[in-house]
């Protein structure tokens, strides 16, 4: 909300400088986000009276003005504007003064006539919105000449941009802010606004009455202004509206807006002639009813919307916006002025649903005090009459505003518990400044009367907050909470995530965090068949863009995208990225979240090094990384040949942990690789974090007393037979003394038949009870060779 400091000063003293003012208001919860001077460059112009107007001797399109800025200051000004009459008060920029755009005004010769400065338009002052006609801005009659235009127009002001929290509807008005200022600064005296409310009439002339047909409109008042003359409102009123962030429209509309800004009560002016019947009924909408609103849009309603109707037809959307048919126009002769109260939630709902955040709806959604209905109506009608917009035609009302106060108890004990002081006298002093009173003097418990303007105060804790924030939070001395009932645990999930992080980083991986939402295309690029649940991501109903419109069903798209971004921006080194995070699987009404660990590896473009070619990352180096991560949580990961829709059919492994398929490790399918225009192979893995969470520390072995004996075995296998299968076979056949088998050579080529490969293993035998003798090992190893040959394995 924009708050004019000049306007605020009319309502309350401001006893400190503006910076201190802004800081203390901010500290108590009413955040001042900015302070601005209106049209800051505009300087030096004076108000002046137009004494004479003559046509320029040689230029028919120019006028020579004789102007009087009082105090003996007279000048001649040339203007092309045609809207001036003798006696008008205008802004005059003498030579040396500065326009809003920073231009300095000089003396100019117009074909023999010297113009001493210039008379100014609204645009030159920097306020084009207040212009009501072409030409020079004519100031309000009665404006004294010789005054600084900044002062005369109310531009010698500071505009505070204040952020009002949603619980403080009462602060969406000048009087509300003034009340808060008086509470924050005990030395600031409030200058109360006490409008005289004319007596309420039984009926209005030629108007049947008001019917309230919905409890969400408890109170509705309607005033009549007759013999209406629609004109612009006074210039100073227009400036004030503009500085408060609203556009001037006409005397009637401007009056309603100024009063809304002042009191916080939204008002609506109907052109009486635009009403289908001489009555007004407030009721719920019927489904399908519609209206053309003031902004020129057709709105179709549901039962939940609250309408202002006349003769059975909607004429306005209660508390949100009026209809076009009853809009004030130049021909309006009778204005019916609505000042009513509507229930917050009802208005909020309609306004949000229709996407219509009007000033009125904004205030009603945050609560408007029903006791503002009458004063607002009175002030607005008074303003219209004083501006010559028409004559007072009486006012009527239906319903009632309810209770003026509500009682809430505050105990010394709770105050003490929360803010470390239980002084109720101090509390009472502070609360009184907020308009909250009590007659009690009990030191332990008091009942306070909460004014209807503060619906946000309904429980004891609310009063504690009022006292605490005005008193100042900085008076509370910080202390650690006393009793520790248990120690803090980071949980196994966090331990697992940390193991992934530290292990992967030590092995050269960069940890990345990518968006949980991705583009549908990035998922379909992975070629999941329809039967694969990952092909059907959960979609956002209101995404920001299509690139982030569905929840990821796998970590791969985000990782691939990050890798591509790096490659395209010229990264030549190896890419090793790891991410842990949720993937989202739609299951009927539910969305299942699964914690995954995923990675993406691309070998670097430039593999030169001082030691010759660097070891290039490949499926096997990545396998070792993934195994290391699992090992760090005491888990053994086994790879078996498998498949994934986006995996190279010959280079895809399933990862088995504790006997379960936990994920995959693969080289990206060449077809996708070329689609992405990748310069090299890309390796991807994605595994469930679950086994890592279940896992604990690394597992340790027993210390062996007797030395091992090593034997090698070399054999020839069909290509396609997995090393791990042969390894398992050896383990199964080698007898009790085999401690470990390690593959140390894989060879194809010279000496090995086509379609076969040679595998060589190193076996470690050990007897935990005694030192093995060579001949024992030879016997065992020989037996193994025989058994392998019996299985059809060809030994070398």
């Amino acid at each position, binding site marked *: 909300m924009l708050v004019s400091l000049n306007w605020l000063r009319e309502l309350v003293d401001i006893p400190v400088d503006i910076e201190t003012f802004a800081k203390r208001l*901010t500290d108590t919860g*009413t955040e001042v986000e900015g302070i601005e001077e209106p049209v800051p460059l505009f300087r030096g112009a004076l108000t002046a009276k137009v004494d004479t107007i003559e046509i320029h001797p040689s230029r028919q399109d120019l006028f020579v003005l004789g102007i009087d800025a009082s105090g003996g200051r007279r000048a001649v000004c040339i203007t092309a504007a045609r809207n001036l009459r003798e006696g008008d008060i205008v802004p005059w920029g003498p030579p040396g003064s500065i326009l809003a755009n920073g231009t300095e005004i000089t003396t100019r010769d117009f074909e023999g006539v010297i113009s001493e400065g210039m008379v100014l338009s609204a645009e030159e002052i920097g306020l084009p919105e207040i212009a009501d006609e072409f030409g020079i801005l004519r100031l309000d009659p009665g404006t004294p000449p010789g005054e600084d235009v900044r002062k005369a127009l109310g531009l010698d002001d500071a505009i505070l941009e204040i952020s009002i*929290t*949603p*619980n403080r509807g009462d602060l969406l008005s000048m009087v509300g802010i003034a009340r808060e200022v008086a509470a924050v600064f005990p030395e600031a005296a409030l200058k109360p606004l006490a409008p005289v409310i004319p007596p309420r009439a039984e009926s209005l002339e030629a108007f049947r009455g008001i019917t309230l047909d919905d409890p969400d409109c408890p109170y509705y008042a309607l005033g009549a202004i007759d013999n209406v003359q629609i004109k612009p409102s006074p210039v100073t009123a227009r400036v004030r509206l503009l500085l408060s962030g609203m556009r001037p429209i006409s005397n009637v509309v401007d009056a309603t807006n100024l009063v809304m800004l002042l009191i916080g009560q939204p008002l609506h002016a109907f052109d009486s002639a635009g009403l289908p019947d001489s009555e007004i009924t407030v009721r719920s909408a019927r489904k399908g009813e519609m209206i053309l609103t003031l902004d020129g849009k057709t709105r179709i309603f549901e039962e939940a919307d609250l309408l202002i109707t006349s003769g059975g037809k909607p004429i306005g959307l209660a508390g949100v916006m009026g209809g076009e048919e009853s809009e004030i126009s130049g021909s309006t002769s009778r204005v019916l002025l609505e000042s009513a109260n509507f229930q917050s*939630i009802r208005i909020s*709902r309609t306004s949000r649903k229709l996407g219509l955040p009007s000033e009125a709806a904004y205030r009603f*959604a945050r609560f408007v005090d029903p006791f503002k209905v009458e004063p607002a109506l009175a002030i607005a009608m008074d303003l219209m009459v004083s501006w010559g917009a028409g004559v007072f035609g009486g006012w009527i009302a239906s319903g009632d505003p309810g209770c003026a106060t509500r009682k809430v108890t505050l105990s010394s004990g709770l105050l003490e*518990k*929360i*803010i*470390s002081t239980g002084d109720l006298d101090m509390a009472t002093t502070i609360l009184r400044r907020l308009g909250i009173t009590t007659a009690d003097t009990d030191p332990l418990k008091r009942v306070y009367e909460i004014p209807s303007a503060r619906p946000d105060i309904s429980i004891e*804790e609310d009063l504690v*907050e009022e006292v605490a*924030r005005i008193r100042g*939070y*900085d008076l*509370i001395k*910080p*202390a*650690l*909470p006393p009793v520790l009932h*248990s*120690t*803090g*645990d*980071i*949980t196994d999930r966090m331990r697992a995530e940390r193991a992934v992080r530290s292990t992967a*980083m*030590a092995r*050269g991986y*960069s*940890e*990345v*965090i990518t*968006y*949980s*939402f991705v583009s549908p295309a990035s998922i379909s690029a992975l070629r999941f068949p329809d039967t694969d649940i990952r092909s059907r991501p*959960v979609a*956002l109903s*209101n*995404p*920001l863009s299509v690139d*982030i419109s569905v929840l990821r069903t796998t970590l791969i798209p*985000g990782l691939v995208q*990050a890798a591509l*971004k*790096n490659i395209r*921006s010229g*990264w030549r*080194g*190896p*890419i090793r990225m*790891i991410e842990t*995070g949720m993937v*989202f699987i739609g299951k009927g009404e539910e*969305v299942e*979240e699964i914690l995954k660990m995923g990675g993406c590896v691309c070998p670097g473009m430039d593999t030169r090094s*001082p*030691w010759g070619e660097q070891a290039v990352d490949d499926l096997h180096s990545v396998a070792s990384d993934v195994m290391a991560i699992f090992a760090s949580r005491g888990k053994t990961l086994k790879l078996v040949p498998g498949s994934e829709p986006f995996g190279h059919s010959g280079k895809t492994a399933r990862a088995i942990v504790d006997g379960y398929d936990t994920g995959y490790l693969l080289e990206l399918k060449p077809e996708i690789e070329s689609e992405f225009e990748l310069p090299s192979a890309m390796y991807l893995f994605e595994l469930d974090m679950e086994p890592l969470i279940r896992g604990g520390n690394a597992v340790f072995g027993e210390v062996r007393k007797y030395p091992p004996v090593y034997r090698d075995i070399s054999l020839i296998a069909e290509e396609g037979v997995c090393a791990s299968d042969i390894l398992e076979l050896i383990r199964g056949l080698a007898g009790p003394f085999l401690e470990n088998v390690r593959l140390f050579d894989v060879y194809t080529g010279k000496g090995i038949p086509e379609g076969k490969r040679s595998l060589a293993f190193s076996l470690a035998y050990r007897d935990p009870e005694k030192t093995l003798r060579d001949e024992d090992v030879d016997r065992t190893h020989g037996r193994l060779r025989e058994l392998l040959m019996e299985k059809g394995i060809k030994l070398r």
Partner: protein
Amino acid sequence: MGIIAEDVRRIRSVFESELASAGNLDEIQKIRVRFLGRKGEVTSLLKRLGALPPEERPEAGRVLNELRDSMEEDISRKESECEGKEVALRESGEWTDVTLPGRGRPWGAFHPVAQIAQEAIDIFASMGFSVAYGPEVEDDFHNFEGLNIPPHHPARDMQDTFYLENSLLLRTHTSPVEVRSMKKWGAPLRIIVPGKTFRRDSDQTHSPMFHQLEGLLVDENISLAHLMGCLEAFANRIFGRNLAARYRGSYFPFTEPSLEMDVECVVCSGKNPSCRICKGTGWLEISGLGMTHPNVLRAGGIDPTRYNGFAWGMGLDRIAMLKYGLNDLRVFFEGDLTFLNSTGGDR
């Protein structure tokens, strides 16, 4: 005997000149073999002892043994001389460029937000807070209603929400885990909730996905002072020095009273009016906080007449930006390796 004596003289003289000219251990070894080996010259002489007349034998034997011993001694001396020279030569003649890049993979890189989360969690764990988790896809009750934000409440405008079908949504804060945890564990309770959160917002300081760290403590007789104590201890630890803190009134539907906490600018301490980080204010907003609203305790099944508590929420991304002096939040989620690996890595 004469023959032997002559041989001894000859051998001795040849040996001495050869040994003197030997330059390394190999050559010395050859000399040893030539003279003292199984077929060496001294050994051959010894073998000829049997051919001498018996009366000459003892003297000849003594002479030959003396010769052998003295040669053995000379060789050993020469050997250790040579060894010393060679060791010295190994240091003076060999060199390696210790500035060559290390071989093998360099260290990777941590993500600033994950790193901050880890540090923050450890700090709060040391104060007795345990980590709690909750779903990122939430329902309306836990994200809003249970937190005292009824439907159509204007406070919903404070957080622009991503919705899914079936009235599910992406949690806009980590606060839903407060209610879930209270229902699960009851009171007393000390939890922190690190996690991803989502709002429909994107600019330099707003990302549609970001990270929060929520905290909740429920116990008997808990005060604002305790909340301030915990958060100041945290701020001082995470930024590595004691920082001034201040509190401002604020509004969150799920706390009453509600506050904002600012700490002294970690970069300029309020001394630089054109500071890029604090924009010259000298203060950095780091957390929203407050005493848990009784309605929230009730939604979590806790009796607000017996227990009360406090809660806070802070942006981990923001703390990472402050701690590491970064100014664009969106690069956090692009996986840019020049950004992440700015402290290491190979390229």
